[in-house]
C-alpha cells in the first residue's frame, strides 16, 4: 500500500503559488481552490513539474490570451486527449535526455481534466496512457457541468409584460408552464448568467421563432402511437428534428388596465400660442386610448420642442376622421386639420405624455413597450384596431401590418401571439423609390417588413375531442398549444445570456417554453441530480443512473487511485505528493464543488465539499493493488459511525436536488440514502479484506 506523508503547511505557506490570482474562474469555484492545493503540493516536492490541461473551465479561465495565470510550464491540446498529450511529452523528454539534449533528474507531470474530459470523452485516452505506464498523476476535478443559453435579443414574458432577456433582474416574476397542471404560472427568476459568445441558431415554427444555442432545451410533445397518451419531454435544440412539436404560448388572459406614471406637466405655454392648451390626460389605459395609440404607432410622431403630435393621415380617410373623434373625446383637444396630408395636435403636455409611454420616436424606431403585454385582451384588440387603420390592410381572411421598424414587427408579433392569433413570420424587403406600398408612393429607397395574422379558428372541442387531441395534445389547454418545428438554421456567433427560474425550471422566451440554464449530465453526474439534459420532471426526477465508478475503473488498471476533497486539504496534498512520487501513472479524483452547476451560494463551496465527505456521498480513500484504505474524515467515520451525517444535509443545500424534497419524491430520497449506505458498507468491507 502507498504510504501517505504528512505535508508541512508551514513550508507550503511560503511558496509562490503556481496558479496565481487574476484568473477568471467564478467566485466560489471549487476548481480554483483544488488546482492551487494540488500545485502547491507538487511545488513542495521541490522537483520541476509541468501541467497538461484538458479543455474545460480551469483551462479556459486561466489562459485567456495574451494573459495566463500559471507560473509553471503548461500545455493544453484538446478536450479528450490530455493523457495522450502527456504521453507524448513524457516520452519526448526522455528521448531528449537520452540524446543528451536536455538534462534533468526527475520531472513530475500533472494532468488536469474535468469530469466531461475524463469520465466521458477522454476515458479511452486516459486508459491507453495508463496501460502504457507513463509516469504522471492525473487529477480529475469532478463537478458535472457543461452550459447553454439564449441570444441577447430574446424577449421574455414577465409579470410586467415583455422584457428583453438582458433587462430581466433577479426576483422578477416570469411566466412559466406548470408541467403538472398545464397552467400558466408566475415564478421567480433566481439566476442570470452571461454565457459569452456562442454559436446561435434560429428555430422556427409556423408562428414562432427564437434564437438560441444548440444545447438549449425545449419542451416537446412525445407522440405515442400505441397509447392515446402523449407525454412532454425536454429536448435540446440538437436533439430536435423538423416536425417535432414544441410547446408555445397561445394566450395570456386576465391583465388589467395599466396605470400611467405621472409626468411633469409644462405650465410655460405651448409652441407659438404662448399659452397652455388645457387638455385632459387619462390616468390609465382604456380601449379608446389604445386605439389612438395604435394610430400613433402607425403614422404618428412627436416633436415636444414644437409641442406637436403629428399624424400623416390625408384628407377624407377613415383614419383621419377617427383620429379627430378620439382626440376630442380622449383629450378634449381639437386637432388642426388645415394640412392636406397631416393632422396636428398642439399640446406640449400631450407630446410629453405620449413620449413617456415608450412607443419610440420616428418610423424606424417604433416598438410596443412591455406594459402593453399586461393590459386586458379588449385593450390589446383596440390597439390592433388602431394599427390596422393606419398601416394595415386586409388580404382575404388575413390581416397584414407593414412597418419600417423590425423591432415593432417583432414585438407586435409576440403581442399577437398572446391574443390567440395565428401569426406568420416577418417578411423583410427593400423597395425602390417610387414603388407603391399600402396605397402610397415611396419618396426614397426604403426597407420595411410586414407580418400577416388572423384569428385562430377554435376547433369544436366538445364534439370532436378525441380526434382533436390526437392532433393537438394541448387542445383543451387555455394558455398553451404545440407547434411543429419548420426549420432550424445557424445564424452566427453572438453574445448569449441565460436565466434560472425556480420550481418550474422553465420560462417563456419569444413565446416558446424553454428550460432553465444549468448543467448537462455527464457520466460524473450523481443520481437524481437535475441538469438541463436530465431535468427533474414530473415523471423522472433528474438523472436516473448513479455516476460511473471511475475510481474503480482506474483502480482496475492496477495503479494507485485516490479520492480527495478540497475541504480536507492536508489529505488532498498528501495524496498529490504520493501520486507524483509513485513511479508510473496514478489517478486522483477530486470533488470540486461548482456553485453554478450544483446551485448554491458561492460562499459555501467548502461547506458543500465537507458535507459530501461527512455524509459518505464522496468518501475519502485510496487503493492500490487490491488494497483499500480510508483516510482523513472517512477513516474517522469508519471508526466512529456516529459521525456520519444524513445525506439529506448535503443534498438540501443544493438547487440541483431541490425537487427531491417535494413529497412525491420522498421515496427517492430514501433510495439515495440506501444506495450511499450500501456503497459505504461495501467500501468498509474492502478496507477490511
Amino acid at each position, binding site marked *: 500500500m502507498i504510504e501517505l506523508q504528512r505535508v508541512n503547511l508551514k513550508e507550503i505557506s511560503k511558496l509562490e503559488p503556481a496558479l496565481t490570482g487574476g484568473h477568471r474562474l467564478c467566485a466560489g469555484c471549487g476548481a480554483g481552490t483544488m488546482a492551487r492545493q494540488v500545485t502547491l503540493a507538487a511545488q513542495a516536492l521541490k522537483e*520541476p*513539474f*509541468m501541467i*497538461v490541461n484538458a479543455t474545460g473551465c480551469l*483551462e*479556459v479561465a486561466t*489562459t*485567456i*490570451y*495574451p494573459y*495566463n495565470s*500559471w*507560473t*509553471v*510550464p*503548461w*500545455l*493544453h*491540446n*484538446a478536450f*479528450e*486527449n490530455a493523457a*495522450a*498529450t*502527456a*504521453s*507524448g*511529452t*513524457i*516520452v*519526448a*523528454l*526522455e*528521448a*531528449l535526455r*537520452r*540524446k543528451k*539534449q*536536455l538534462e*534533468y533528474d526527475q*520531472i513530475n507531470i500533472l494532468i488536469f481534466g474535468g469530469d466531461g474530459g475524463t469520465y466521458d470523452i477522454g476515458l*479511452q*485516452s486516459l*486508459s*491507453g*496512457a495508463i*496501460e*502504457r505506464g507513463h509516469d504522471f498523476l492525473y487529477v480529475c476535478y469532478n463537478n458535472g457541468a457543461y452550459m447553454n443559453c439564449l441570444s441577447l435579443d430574446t424577449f421574455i414574458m414577465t409579470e410586467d409584460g415583455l422584457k428583453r432577456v438582458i433587462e430581466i433582474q433577479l426576483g422578477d416574476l416570469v411566466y412559466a408552464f406548470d408541467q403538472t397542471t398545464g397552467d400558466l404560472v408566475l415564478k421567480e427568476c433566481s439566476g442570470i448568467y452571461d454565457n459569452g*459568445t456562442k454559436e446561435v441558431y434560429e428555430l422556427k415554427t409556423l408562428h414562432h421563432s427564437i434564437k438560441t444555442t444548440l444545447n438549449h432545451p425545449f419542451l416537446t410533445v412525445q407522440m405515442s402511437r400505441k397509447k392515446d397518451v402523449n407525454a412532454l419531454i425536454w429536448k435540446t435544440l440538437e436533439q430536435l428534428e423538423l416536425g417535432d412539436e414544441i410547446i408555445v404560448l397561445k394566450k395570456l388572459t386576465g391583465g388589467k388596465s395599466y396605470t400611467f406614471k405621472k409626468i411633469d406637466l409644462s405650465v410655460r405655454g405651448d409652441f407659438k400660442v404662448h399659452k397652455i392648451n388645457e387638455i385632459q390626460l387619462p390616468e390609465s389605459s382604456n380601449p379608446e386610448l389604445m386605439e389612438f395609440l395604435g394610430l400613433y404607432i402607425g403614422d404618428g410622431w412627436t416633436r415636444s420642442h414644437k409641442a406637436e403630435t403629428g399624424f400623416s393621415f390625408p384628407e377624407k380617410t377613415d383614419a383621419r376622421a377617427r383620429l379627430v373623434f378620439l382626440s376630442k373625446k380622449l383629450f378634449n383637444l381639437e386637432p388642426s386639420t388645415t394640412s392636406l396630408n397631416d393632422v396636428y395636435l398642439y399640446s406640449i403636455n400631450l407630446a410629453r405624455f405620449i413620449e413617456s409611454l415608450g412607443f419610440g420616436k420616428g418610423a424606424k424606431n417604433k416598438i410596443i413597450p412591455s406594459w402593453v403585454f399586461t393590459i386586458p385582451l379588449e385593450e390589446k384588440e383596440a390597439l390592433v384596431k388602431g394599427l390596422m387603420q393606419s398601416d394595415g390592410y386586409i388580404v382575404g381572411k388575413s390581416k397584414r401590418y407593414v412597418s419600417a421598424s423590425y423591432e415593432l414587427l417583432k414585438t407586435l408579433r409576440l403581442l399577437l401571439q398572446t391574443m390567440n392569433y395565428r401569426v406568420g413570420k416577418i417578411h423583410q424587403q427593400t423597395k425602390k423609390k417610387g414603388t407603391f406600398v399600402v396605397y402610397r408612393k415611396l419618396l426614397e429607397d426604403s426597407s420595411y417588413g410586414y407580418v400577416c395574422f388572423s384569428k385562430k379558428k377554435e376547433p369544436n372541442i366538445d364534439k370532436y375531442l378525441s380526434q382533436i387531441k390526437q392532433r393537438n395534445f394541448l387542445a383543451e389547454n387555455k394558455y398553451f398549444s404545440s407547434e411543429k418545428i419548420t426549420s432550424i438554421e445557424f445564424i452566427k456567433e453572438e453574445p448569449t445570456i441565460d436565466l434560472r427560474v425556480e420550481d418550474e425550471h422553465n420560462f417563456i422566451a419569444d413565446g416558446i417554453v424553454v428550460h432553465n440554464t444549468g448543467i448537462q449530465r455527464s457520466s460524473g453526474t450523481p443520481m437524481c441530480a437535475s441538469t438541463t439534459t436530465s431535468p427533474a420532471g414530473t415523471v423522472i426526477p433528474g438523472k436516473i443512473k448513479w455516476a460511473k465508478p471511475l475510481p474503480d475503473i482506474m483502480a482496475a488498471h492496477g495503479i494507485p487511485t485516490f479520492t480527495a476533497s478540497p475541504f480536507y486539504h492536508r489529505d488532498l496534498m498528501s495524496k498529490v505528493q504520493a501520486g507524483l512520487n509513485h513511479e508510473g501513472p496514478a489517478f486522483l479524483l477530486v470533488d470540486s464543488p461548482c456553485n453554478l452547476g450544483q446551485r448554491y451560494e458561492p460562499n459555501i463551496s467548502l461547506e458543500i465539499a465537507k458535507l459530501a465527505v461527512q455524509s459518505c456521498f464522496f468518501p475519502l480513500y485510496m487503493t492500490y493493488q487490491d488494497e483499500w484504505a480510508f483516510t482523513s474524515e472517512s477513516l474517522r467515520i469508519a471508526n466512529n459511525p456516529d459521525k456520519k451525517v444524513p445525506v439529506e444535509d448535503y443534498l438540501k443545500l443544493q438547487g440541483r436536488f431541490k425537487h427531491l424534497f417535494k413529497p412525491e419524491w420522498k421515496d427517492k430520497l430514501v433510495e439515495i440514502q440506501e444506495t450511499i449506505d450500501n456503497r459505504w458498507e461495501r467500501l468498509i468491507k474492502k478496507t477490511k479484506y
Partner: protein
Amino acid sequence: MIEPIVKGMTGDEAVAWAAKQINPDVIAAYPITPQTIIVERFSDYVNDGLVDTSYIPVESEHSAMSACVGASATGARVFTATASAGLALMYEILYVASGMRLPIVLAVANRAFSAPINIHGECTDQMVCRDASWISLFGESAQEAYDETIMSFKIGENPEVMLPTMFGIEGFIVTHALERVDTLPDKTVKEFLGDRRVIPACCTFNPFAVGTFGSLVLQDNYMELKRQQEEAMQKAYHVTKNVMAEFSEISGRDYEIIEKYNLEDADYAFVSYGATAGNAKAVVDRLREKGEKVGSLKIRLYRPYPVSDIYEALKGIKAVSILDRSATFGSPATIAQNDLAAALYGKKDVPTLHGYINGLGGRVLLLPEIEQVYEQSKKYHEEGKALTQDWIGYRR
C-alpha cells in the same frame, strides 16, 4: 552527387527506411492498412536497437496525433503515419498541430474512406485535409516516398515555416509495390537535416521554461494568429523549392514542386498527382508516337498550391484533363480541378479544364481509358466546353 545505395523496397518500407536514417526522437503511431508496414518495420528498428527513437504504441490515431503534439511541443523531432479512417480520426488534432506551429511529419498511405469499407488506394483522405494548414505533398513511387520523407522534415522545421507536413503515397499501388530505391548514406541524411532543436529551449514545453501552450484566444487575437499561419504557408512555398533544389543536388534526382513531362510544345496535357502520373506519362509516350502533341504535369506540392508554376507550365495549352483519384460529390468540379480552375481563373492563354474522377477504392486506371480521356477532352475543347466533370473507369 553522392553514390546511391540501391535497395529493393516497397513504398512503406522506403518510408520506414528513411525514418530509420532520420532517427526521429519520437514516433507515436497506430497501425492501419495499408500503412502497417511502416510501423512494423520501424518497430523492428526500435527493438533491434538500430534507432534510438522512442516509440509510443498509442491506442488510437486520435491519441497518436495528440501524443505527437505533446512531444513536438518539447522541441523533439516527431514522426507518425496513418491512412484513411485513421487520418479522419486525427482530423481534430491536425488543426491543433498546425495552430500550435508544430513541425510534425505524417506519412499517409492514401486509402479510400468507408462505407462501403475498402482498404485500397485513393487520395480522398489526404485531400479533405488540404485546408488544415498542413504542407501537403504527393509521391508517385517508392523512390519518391523515400525522398519526400526526408524532405518533409526539412521543409516543416524551417524556422520561417514551422508547420506540420504530410505526404501521401497511394495504398498498395505504391505502399506495397516492390521497386528499386536509390537510398542515401545515413550520414548524408543526417547532415542534410541537421538538428531539429534549432528553436531556443525557452520557446519549447520543457521543465525549465515557464511557457503557456495552447491557450484560449478570443475574438481580439484569433484572426491575427491564423493570419500568421497563412503567411507561414506562403513562405513554405519558397522553402520547399529551395529544399527540393538542395535535395536534387545531393541525390542527383531532379526534384521540383511540379514535374513537367513533354509540356514544352504540347497542345494538350494531363494533370495528376501521385501514382496516376506514371500512367499519364506512359500514355503521353504512346500518343507522342502517334504524333499527338501532348504532355503531362504532376503536382508534387499540393499545399501550399504552386499557382504561378502551374500557370507557367500550362500557359498556351488548349485543354487539360485532370486525372483525380479522389472523390467529391455534388461539387462543381473534381477536387484537383477546383484548385486548378481557381489558380488559372482570369489569367491569359489558359487551357479549358476537364476533370475525371477515377480509380476510387483502388480501381485500376487502364492506359486505353486515359487515351479515351484524351480524345474526350479534345472533343469537349473543340465543342467549346470550358469546364466539365466526368467519372471514368466504372461500369455504367
